[in-house]
């Protein structure tokens, strides 16, 4: 059974998440401690600034309790705190949750791309610690590839959802590459600085900051590797820059339509992009109607962000459908994977029965030569194999259709079979417990849970 226990920005306050936060180097030792619990066959842990999640696989729900025990021992978090601030997912819900997390569907900023790398790093750390096995390895590989599909096939990460990133995206839409563009920043406002930093990170080589108070402009310029100039000198450079960021505290516009029109005549170059994030505005709004000039004030940028968020929400609906399909595909793999021990047990049971019957009947026969005994033994085995051929194929096919969960328990009960669980323990039909989803659980690992739970 797969069990996931986690806390995120929605479920737990920051101070609690801070207590649990792990650095990259700590993840290995945490998963090793979890794996040391006898109930746990595989363990994985993800820790980001917005979430901490533990995933374990074991033969039954006891594996989930191993997480509780670990959190109690290491962090003194009792069950009451976990019930209030943590979420618990089992089986299919745990798989689906992990897929959604990797795709950014559960992130604070819908579709944010960093989570994919964080899941990848956490997977690498758990794998290096040797705490993942066939199932969790496959689960994480599948979650990562599903997340990549969701990103590439839907627009979930495509649209900028902050004012600064929206401004940079617009700059890209006007100029393409930004590595030969010059930026003039009017004033030294915090928001303007954020936009300037984003532009710099996107390849802008030259940033000029001008302010009425040169010292303030110079201080701001030093913070992000720009050059400061005096106010009048800055306005004189209007014709030689491609992007202007307005973020002064001036009570009325400091850049007029006339100034921009004059700069345009002088510059004889391409488009001019004006980002006005000052309130009151720094640039006269009529500038936008000039040919080849694009003015975006704070309302326009927020409008772009709102539109983009809406686009992301629409894309998220597509991504959820895609994730559902991927979860089903993973479950089919699991069923096909889990049917192996069942078929082996069935085969073993039939061969042993055949062998027993052969021994019983040999006593009634005349003494056989060695070759006759061999032929008789081969006949028994061949008959056993022939009898098993069709049921085996049927079981494999039902697993790929996702139906083995219904058929396998009946078969196990009918033949009173025992199979080896993935983590080495032996389980018998009928000694299970009721799963959290209400489907009869226990018995042969995973198979007897109606095909809905992963074990």
């Amino acid at each position, binding site marked *: 059974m797969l069990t996931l226990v986690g806390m995120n920005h929605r479920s737990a306050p920051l101070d609690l998440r801070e207590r649990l936060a792990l650095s990259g180097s700590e993840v290995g030792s945490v998963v090793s401690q979890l794996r040391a619990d006898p109930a746990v066959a595989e363990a994985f842990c993800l820790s980001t600034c917005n979430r901490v999640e533990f995933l374990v696989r074991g033969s039954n729900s006891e594996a989930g309790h191993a997480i509780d025990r670990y959190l109690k021992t290491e962090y003194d978090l009792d069950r009451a705190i976990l019930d209030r601030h943590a979420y618990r997912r089992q089986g299919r819900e745990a798989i689906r949750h992990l897929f959604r997390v990797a795709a950014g569907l559960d992130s604070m900023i819908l579709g944010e791309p960093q989570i994919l790398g964080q899941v990848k790093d956490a997977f690498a750390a758990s794998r290096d610690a040797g705490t993942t096995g066939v199932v969790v390895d496959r689960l994480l590989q599948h979650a990562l590839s599903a997340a990549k599909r969701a990103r590439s*096939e839907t627009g979930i990460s495509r649209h900028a959802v902050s004012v600064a990133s929206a401004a940079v995206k617009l700059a890209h*839409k006007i*100029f*393409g590459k930004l590595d030969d563009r010059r930026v003039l920043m009017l004033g030294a406002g915090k928001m303007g600085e954020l936009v300037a930093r984003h532009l710099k990170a996107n390849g802008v080589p030259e940033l000029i900051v001008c302010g009425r108070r040169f010292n303030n402009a110079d201080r701001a310029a030093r913070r992000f590797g720009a050059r400061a100039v005096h106010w009048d000198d800055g306005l004189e450079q209007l014709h030689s820059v491609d992007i202007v960021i307005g973020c002064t505290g001036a009570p009325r516009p400091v850049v007029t339509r006339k100034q921009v029109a004059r700069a345009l005549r002088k510059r004889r170059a*391409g488009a001019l992009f004006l980002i006005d994030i000052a309130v009151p505005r720094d640039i006269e709004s009529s500038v*936008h109607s000039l040919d080849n000039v694009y003015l975006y004030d704070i309302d326009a940028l927020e*409008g*772009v962000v709102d539109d983009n968020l809406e686009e992301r929400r629409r894309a998220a609906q597509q991504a959820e459908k895609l994730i559902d399909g991927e979860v089903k595909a993973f479950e089919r793999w699991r069923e096909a994977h889990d049917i192996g021990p069942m078929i082996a047990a069935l085969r073993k049971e039939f061969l042993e029965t055949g062998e027993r019957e052969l021994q019983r009947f040999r006593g009634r026969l005349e003494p056989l030569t060695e070759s006759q005994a061999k032929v008789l033994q081969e006949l028994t085995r061949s008959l056993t194999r022939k009898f098993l051929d069709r049921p085996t194929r049927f079981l494999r096919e039902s697993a790929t259709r996702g139906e083995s969960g219904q058929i396998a328990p009946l078969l196990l009960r009918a033949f009173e079979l025992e199979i080896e669980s993935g983590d080495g323990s032996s389980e018998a039909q009928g000694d299970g417990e009721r799963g959290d989803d209400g489907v009869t659980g226990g018995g042969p690992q995973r198979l007897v849970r109606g095909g809905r739970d992963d074990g």
Partner: protein
Amino acid sequence: MIQALLPLALAGYVLGVVLATIGTVQSSRLAARGASIVFTCTWAVHTVAILLIGIDAGRVPLTNRFEYLVAFGWAIAGLYLYVMARHHFRVAGLVLPPLAALSVGGALAVSHPTVANEDVPGVGFLFHTSISTLGMAFLGVAFGMAIIYLAQDHALKSRSTPGLLQRLPALEECDHVGFQALIVGFILLTVGIGTGVAMNTGLHSKLLSGGAKQIFPLLAWGVFLVVLLARRWLGYRGRKSALLTIAGFLLGLATVVGMTL
């Protein structure tokens, strides 16, 4: 064979445009890749059709309206494939291949005249028509880029179409590709007009005979000259420049309508 290949090319361009539209609007990579494959295969079919027309006529197939339209469509589709390979402007699939499709469709609509041996034109005439056709194809690319530029400009000015914004190439990149195509097209058109005037002088002992096929290219040439000079000396770019490029190309295209080769 030619009768089968040209309708096939037309169907291919139409199918490619449908796939390119789905690929652009729905952001479907599968449809976009399908469009690229269809356009490439169709262009190969189109190339074979031109070769067969040439072999059938025993000369370069550029002596009448039918052949001009077939060749113009082929050249613009080829340039589209080049633009896609070089700049990955997926949205160009909605502008340039329709021109190729219209051109092939136009060729199929006019009759395919058989040219008698004595009508076989000279090298000078073939040079003039080849250069003019290629020039118009380059100007067609400039026209396509101008349309995309205007769409992007509209999206940026209206500030409310993020979906469309995401799918269009950057404004300056459109301008750059369009400008390059305009320069090459303008040079070829100038040479084409020059050779045309020289031939007309030789045949009729006057510079111009006043027909539509002479007036429209000259008007188009004049418009393009204004666009280029204004850009060079006044830094004249943007919407108005794009509109003039579109007007110039449409004037050039009108030559085909008035063509009575």
